[in-house]
């Protein structure tokens, strides 16, 4: 498995790192679904501020509303109450500066890898002038040789990398990651976690990751927000100042992990 390997001296063509991400402010956001006439509260007064180029993980039990929060941040749905602001401006709809990488890669099966990655540029009419960005994004995720492959010919890890390239080609200021590694086997997952960190360090976007994997959250993020079960509330905030690149066996990570499990009410086994 080739790790994304752009030469070190090569600067990312579409970014002027460092710290080119956005700030994200979530202010008193609540959200409800209508389930056959019954209101189902999903989010309960969530307030959160994420700094420029920070890597924040949202951690919580399955079905607690993490993904719903991401959809609100992406602008795919409006919140029932509260406000979401990017760089001080309200989120009013989807915007290519805030790109989501979903749990399922959902590549378009009728497009080749190259054309899948080009999707965002094509949608905004930039493909004619920015074709090289597609190749750059493919190189960034190590898929240069697979430009002409169709999605059904790819392995799970390669599909998810294509999805990542499809997001990165738009030069997002905020990358929203909705359990992007959830469906991968554990080895591919560990590799991809490393790749994700190095991409984030090199490109400098703000990253918001949703996961229910405690190790993943602690290994990747600078700050881990622990959410309660539905309706989700912020239960704890754990700051992880460990320097990158991190080592999985670091004793500090083990300590933090115990702390996180305690907040999730699972500390009995630790």
């Amino acid at each position, binding site marked *: 498995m080739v790790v994304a390997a752009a030469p070190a001296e090569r600067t990312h063509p579409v970014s002027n790192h460092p710290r080119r991400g956005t700030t994200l402010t979530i202010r008193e956001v609540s959200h409800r679904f209508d389930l056959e006439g019954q209101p189902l509260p999903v989010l309960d007064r969530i307030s959160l501020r994420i700094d420029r180029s920070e890597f924040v993980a949202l951690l919580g039990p399955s079905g607690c509303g993490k993904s719903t929060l991401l959809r609100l941040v992406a602008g795919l749905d409006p919140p029932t109450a509260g406000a979401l602001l990017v760089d001080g401006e309200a989120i009013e709809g989807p915007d290519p500066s805030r*790109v989501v990488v979903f749990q399922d890669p959902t590549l*378009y099966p*009728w497009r080749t890898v190259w054309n899948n990655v080009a999707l965002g540029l094509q949608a905004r009419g930039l493909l004619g002038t920015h074709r090289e960005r597609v190749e750059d994004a493919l190189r960034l995720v190590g898929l240069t040789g697979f430009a002409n492959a169709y999605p059904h010919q790819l392995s799970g890890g390669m599909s998810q990398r294509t999805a990542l390239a499809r997001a990165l080609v738009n030069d997002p200021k905020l990358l929203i990651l909705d359990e992007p590694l959830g469906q991968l086997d554990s080895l591919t997952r560990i590799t991809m976690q490393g790749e994700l960190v190095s991409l984030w360090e090199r490109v400098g976007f703000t990253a918001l990751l949703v996961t229910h994997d405690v190790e993943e959250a602690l290994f990747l993020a600078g700050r881990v927000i622990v959410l309660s079960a539905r309706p989700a509330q912020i239960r704890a905030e754990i700051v992880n100042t460990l320097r990158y690149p991190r080592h999985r066996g670091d004793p500090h990570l083990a300590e933090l992990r115990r702390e996180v499990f305690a907040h999730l009410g699972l500390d009995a086994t630790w």
Partner: protein
Amino acid sequence: MSSVVDEVASRPRPVVGPIASPPARSLIGGLAAAAAWFGVAAVTSFWPDKPESDWAYTDDFAALSGALAVALALAACAGVWFAGLQRVRRLAPWLIALALFFGAWEAVTAKLGLLPLPFFPPPQAILEVVVDDRTRLIACVLASFRLLATGYCLGAAIGFVTGVAIGWSRLVNYWIHPVLRFIGPLPATAWLPLAFFVFPSSFSASIFLIALATGFPVTVLTWSGVAGVNSAYYDIARTLGASQRFLVLKVAIPAAMPHVFVGLFMGLGTSFAVLVVAEMLGVKAGLGWYLQWAQGWAAYANMYAALLIMALLCSGLITLLFRLRDRLLSWQKGLVRW
């Protein structure tokens, strides 16, 4: 990392036969087919026709069979050197079966007279029709094709646009869907009496009927294709800054194309039926009309000839549509049984 792609590319092919090499097998198959057709030629030529019959094209049919036999023999021999001609091998069983069929047909009609005339003419009678009546037959083929192509393309285009509109817009769905549900299942031929007095010419009426027959399945399947698109495809495109136009043209339509093609195939099938009925009842041209006319004169050889040509035309068009699908939907090859 490349394992998946490699595996697809180098999937082992089944081994066909253990003994003879491909050129040798194609030679044997080709020569066997040639021998069978020589047999047909010999039966036709040397076994005299039943005394009181007068088939003008007996010798021509024998010559044609003989020519086919010679061509097959040459192709079989050439196949030893030219790999392209080795396809003959695959066709050989069919060629032999056809030769047996034609030989038997020739024997029970022209030679023994076992089947009643004029209902069952011998092969040379059909050859006679194709040669002697070719001007009229060509005119009929052209007339049929013109009618079918115009009606089908019109119906497919309108059906496709309507289907996308119903699948995409709630408002269009509200108004068009009930109409479609109510009128769609009516067979297009039921409109025939109405169409022939509403439209200024029988030609335009037939175009309307064929378009109607094509349009209904294309509309319904395009609609279900568009309505069934994975909503995550839209989420992806929307977060990447896609406009409504982009969502329709670059997401909904490509994703719905496999369904659209099912509709196009179904539409083509029903359009053939409507074409023949319309030509029999209204338009005084085309193969359907020719069939009717031949039957009226008890010219059964003409009828068989027209049926044969019609079968070639219809299967040719279906093949053409398959080729188009293979080109446009080649991405499906790894996903579905092709």
